[in-house]
């Protein structure tokens, strides 16, 4: 106010008129001032007035403020003031807190104002879009009031605002981004905003879920300490409830996203459960509610079943059962946990079996079921807890024949264990206790053990009760009717009648048992025909139903109470119309339709505990049938009976034929399958045969080629036929062959080195011959000849060796061939497996043959090169021989010359002798002749 006075000058006389004027002036300034500072100051002033003079500010300034939001986008300060002002005008929350002193009337006025201003704001949907874009402004002073303003608008006009947000493409994702804001205030107010946004709008719920809401919310819950967390956790849980409630698509997403598993740690409560804070209790309540949403009986059966399975597999059910048996858990949490466990096990055999196996940590350990039933029949336990236990028991038995059998068995004489308290004992105790609530609960619980289970209905007829000393035991059925006739409380009688109706319906033996007691029918007719007060009408209706069941499920085995006689009795004693009217009392009861809604027994007060959900189903089923049965005359009945019989016969015939057809169908199916498998087999076999044929052809071709090749080569070296092929030893032989091949290769290299050595020798020989070519000496010649001889020998031996190798190679080839050809023929008609084996072997062998061929061609090449070397050597040799011949010839010539000269010398000597000269001895001359040849010539 002081600030305002400063701004506005001295206009402070009498606030009311001047304030309105002031606001008008401020609005003018907001609208017309060109200076941003001016506008900003004016908006700030409006903000400060907006709480106290909400109406005035709202009426006059809203348009201007919205205008500011549109035009002054760059100045976050003015935006903040404008948003704050709008929030103050539109929101009803602050009002309530501020004006506590004002009377209710004024508050209502305020609410009206909020709605009015909201409507005004929403006149243009663009305004919401504008706010959504402003949310992108990071500045705290803009974003925060923007969030609050949107929340207030949603609170006042939810559906309309939801509609606008929905059609702005980025709207929901912008709002979702608030959850990621690092400023907790904004994140937490964002949660409140999303709560309002998702209320009752499945389309928005789905988009929010699509924008990863589950992930974010579960993260926040974990960060904040799960159930120990504060109000933020609660807000997250409330939002989760909004997203999942009645939204099967989101539930499916929640389950498929593996978020059920993330709920398990929520329920890990410690040993010490004393002193839970109110917040923790609230949080756990919501957590349990979330679990129940996923397995609610109103969900589609498939969805609930898969969630139940998941909860067992991830250990959530086990965790809940731990809470169930823990000590110190607050009663309301315990109650809600029991309700939750009930729905997690309902109709799921695995979960029901697990539940039956849970034991309380007492000494000796007792089954959880027994401990729970003890609470149900205990008057001192809270009413809601007893209801929860009854629900749990009902869910345990729902569609659980095994469980039903186990419960009934605890009542049968043969299986009673006297040492421990059993479920059956507790139920009987409850049935006949003085507490009517216990009577009702026990009766309904027992009825559920018989639901849709003929075996157990018959079994329970065997149960006998010891009453007082000296009296004979009474059957359970009889005891029930006895109590009924003693005129106890309505609740007790209603419970017992429901049990009896469930028990004997659809069970003719039980009907006979019931009718066998002579007192029962007169009691029922008396009850129905009497004109009793308002309170008794329901009991009358139930008695009519029971009598009707006796008519409808009567197998006429008792002569006094055949269908016909009972009907006559009804007509005489009660009157048909009266009977039908009384029967109608049941469905006309005000509590009937409530119970028919859902399986969980929920009652506003213990007195209202009258109808059971399953029983309402039975009534619906039987009412029409009984009405018809009672109305029908005996003739009609007979006719109908006949028709029924013929129909039954027809049915029988039809079912017989059906079965026959089914059988034949199965046979045909079987045969078809056989045919199909046979065709595929044949196809396979044909394929293998053709494959094999082509393979055989290939092998034959190969064989022929090899044979031809072999024919061309030496046939003489076939002395190793001693080796015989044995099919089974092929692999061994193959390895042998491989070894041999290896050896051959080694020999080959050896030969090659030898060859190169030889080459060297030949080279040296060549040079030697060249040297010896000039003055050919006789001794040199002989040496050369000798060496040549040796070389020849060596070449010969190499040739022999090569020949040997060739022979070996041929043998190998033959063996390989034999191996491959041996394998082919028998595979014609052998099984697939051996075929495959043989084929693989064949392939291996062919490749081996291939390798061998390669080796052979290599060897051949080497052989050729060796032969060529030999040829070269031979030419060399012949050359040398001719050279030797030449030198011999020369020598001969020289010898001739020598002889000539000898002769000359001789003649000359003779002449000298003749002339009387002394001549030297011949020998001397002989010895000297070679050296003195030239001299001799010179002398010539």
């Amino acid at each position, binding site marked *: 106010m002081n600030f305002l006075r400063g701004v506005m000058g001295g206009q402070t006389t009498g606030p009311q008129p001047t304030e309105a004027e002031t606001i008008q002036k401020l609005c003018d300034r907001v609208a017309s001032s060109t200076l941003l500072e001016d506008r900003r100051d004016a908006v700030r002033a409006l903000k400060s007035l907006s709480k106290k003079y909400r109406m005035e500010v709202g009426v006059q300034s809203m348009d201007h403020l919205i205008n500011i939001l549109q035009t002054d986008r760059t100045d976050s300060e003015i935006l903040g003031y404008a948003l704050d002002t709008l929030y103050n005008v539109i929101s009803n929350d602050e009002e309530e807190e501020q004006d506590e002193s004002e009377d209710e009337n004024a508050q209502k006025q305020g609410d009206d104002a909020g709605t009015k201003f909201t409507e005004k704001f929403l006149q243009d949907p663009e305004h919401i879009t504008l706010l959504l874009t402003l949310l992108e402004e990071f500045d705290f002073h803009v974003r925060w009031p923007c969030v609050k303003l949107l929340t207030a608008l949603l609170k006042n006009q939810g559906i309309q605002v939801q509609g606008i947000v*929905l059609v702005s*493409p980025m709207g929901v*994702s912008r709002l979702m981004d608030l959850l990621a804001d690092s400023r907790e205030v904004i994140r937490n107010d964002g949660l409140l905003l999303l709560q309002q946004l998702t209320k009752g709008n499945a389309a928005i719920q789905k*988009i929010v879920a*699509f924008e990863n809401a589950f*992930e974010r919310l579960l993260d926040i819950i974990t960060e904040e300490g799960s159930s120990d967390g504060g109000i933020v956790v609660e807000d997250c849980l409330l939002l989760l409830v909004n997203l999942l409630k009645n939204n099967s698509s989101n539930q499916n997403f929640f389950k498929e996203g593996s978020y059920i598993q993330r709920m398990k740690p929520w329920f890990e409560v410690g040993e010490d459960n004393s002193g839970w804070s109110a917040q923790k209790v609230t949080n756990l309540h919501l957590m349990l509610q979330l679990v129940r949403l996923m397995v609610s009986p109103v969900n589609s059966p498939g969805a609930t079943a898969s969630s139940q399975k998941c909860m067992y597999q991830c250990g959530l059910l086990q965790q809940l059962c731990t809470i169930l048996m823990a000590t110190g858990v607050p009663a309301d949490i315990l109650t809600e946990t029991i309700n939750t466990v009930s729905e997690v096990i309902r109709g799921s055999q695995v979960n029901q079996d697990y539940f039956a196996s849970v034991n309380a940590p007492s000494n000796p350990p007792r089954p959880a079921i027994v401990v729970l039933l003890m609470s149900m029949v205990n008057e001192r336990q809270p009413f809601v807890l007893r209801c929860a236990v009854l629900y749990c028991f009902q869910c345990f038995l729902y569609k659980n024949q095994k469980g039903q059998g186990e419960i009934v068995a605890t009542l049968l004489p043969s299986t009673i264990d006297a040492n421990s308290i059993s479920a059956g004992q507790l139920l009987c105790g409850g049935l006949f206790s003085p507490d009517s609530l216990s009577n009702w609960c026990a009766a309904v619980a027992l009825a559920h053990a018989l639901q849709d289970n003929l075996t157990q209905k018959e079994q329970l007829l065997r149960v006998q009760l010891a009453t007082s000393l000296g009296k004979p035991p009474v059957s359970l059925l009889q005891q029930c009717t006895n109590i009924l006739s003693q005129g106890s409380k309505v609740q007790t009688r209603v419970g017992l009648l429901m049990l009896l109706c469930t028990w004997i319906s659809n069970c003719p033996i039980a009907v006979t048992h019931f009718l066998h007691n002579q007192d029962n029918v007169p009691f029922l007719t008396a009850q129905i025909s009497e004109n009793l007060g308002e309170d008794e009408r329901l009991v009358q209706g139930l008695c009519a139903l029971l009598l009707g069941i006796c008519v409808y499920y009567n197998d006429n085995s008792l002569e006094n109470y055949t269908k016909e006689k009972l009907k006559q009795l009804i007509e005489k004693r009660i009157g048909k119309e009266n009977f039908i009217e009384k029967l109608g009392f049941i469905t006309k009861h005000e509590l009937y339709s409530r119970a028919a809604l859902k399986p969980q027994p929920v009652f506003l007060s213990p007195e209202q505990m009258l109808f059971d959900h399953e029983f309402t189903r039975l009534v619906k089923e039987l009412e029409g049938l009984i009405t018809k049965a009672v109305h029908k005359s005996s003739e009609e009945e007979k006719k109908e009976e006949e028709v029924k019989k013929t129909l039954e016969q027809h049915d029988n015939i039809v079912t017989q034929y059906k079965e026959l057809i089914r059988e034949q169908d199965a046979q045909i199916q079987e045969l078809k399958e056989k045919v199909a498998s046979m065709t595929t087999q044949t196809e396979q076999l044909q394929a293998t045969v053709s494959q094999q044929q082509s393979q055989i052809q290939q092998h034959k071709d190969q064989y022929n080629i090899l044979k031809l090749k072999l024919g061309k080569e030496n046939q003489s070296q076939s002395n190793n036929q001693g080796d015989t092929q044995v099919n089974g030893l092929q692999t061994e032989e193959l390895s042998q062959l491989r070894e041999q091949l290896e050896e051959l290769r080694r020999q080959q290299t050896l030969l090659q080195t030898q060859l190169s050595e030889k080459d060297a020798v030949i080279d040296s020989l060549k040079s030697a011959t060249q040297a010896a070519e000039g003055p050919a000496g006789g001794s040199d010649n002989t040496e050369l000849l000798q060496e040549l001889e040796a070389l020849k020998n060596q070449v010969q031996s190499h040739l022999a060796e090569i020949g040997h190798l060739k022979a070996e190679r041929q043998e190998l080839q033959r063996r390989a061939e034999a191996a491959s050809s041996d394998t082919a023929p028998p595979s014609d008609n052998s099984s697939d497996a051996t075929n495959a084996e043989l084929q693989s072997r064949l392939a291996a062998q062919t490749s081996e043959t291939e390798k061998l061929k390669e080796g052979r061609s290599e060897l051949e090449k080497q052989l050729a090169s060796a032969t060529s070397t030999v040829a070269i050597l031979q030419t060399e040799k012949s050359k040398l021989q001719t050279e030797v011949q030449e030198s011999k010839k020369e020598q001969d010539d020289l010898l001739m010359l020598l002889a000539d000269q000898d002769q000359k010398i001789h003649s000359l000597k003779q002449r000298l002798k003749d002339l009387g000269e002394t001549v030297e001895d011949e020998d001397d001359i002989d010895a000297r002749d070679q050296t003195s040849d030239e001299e001799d010539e010179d002398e010539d």
Partner: protein
Amino acid sequence: MAYAYLFKYIIIGDTGVGKSCLLLQFTDKRFQPVHDLTIGVEFGARMITIDGKQIKLQIWDTAGQESFRSITRSYYRGAAGALLVYDITRRDTFNHLTTWLEDARQHSNSNMVIMLIGNKSDLESRREVKKEEGEAFAREHGLIFMETSAKTASNVEEAFINTAKEIYEKIQEGVFDINNEANGIKIGPQHPTTNSTLPSSQGGQHAGGGCC
């Protein structure tokens, strides 16, 4: 169940082209002959295997009716893949593809993989749109194309799986920022996140594959 990646898909296209049937065939392996109008969107999920890796597909099946168009637009941005479906026996559903595509391109992230699907391929006798036309449209707009039949289940698996393969390849190439969940991709709980932050983590991926 554990998965290496999670992909978000949307299915879009005119009303009555068989979007919901495609989803039902893919998730439940059954066919629903009666046309039940989808209200808003419906959710479905299934696990598939690509390159030896478990991949969870979360699929939002949208309503084709014009009145739901504004709602379904909210789903474009957060999806990694879209199946754009038309009906080969109804030319008008093919003619509307351009509008759908514009809408998708405008509101989605630029990397979204779009698979064009010509559904009802079992109704050959009533065909109004040639396969070549679908192929040409896909080529022109850079989409993958397939003709499917939700009734006979022909190509249904392939349509969903091939889309996933394309996304997976884009991840391998480093096109997608997989740490931003707004792209419709999430890394599984066991996946080594350090590897995935590298844009070109080909080597890392292989190493990861080896140890599994």
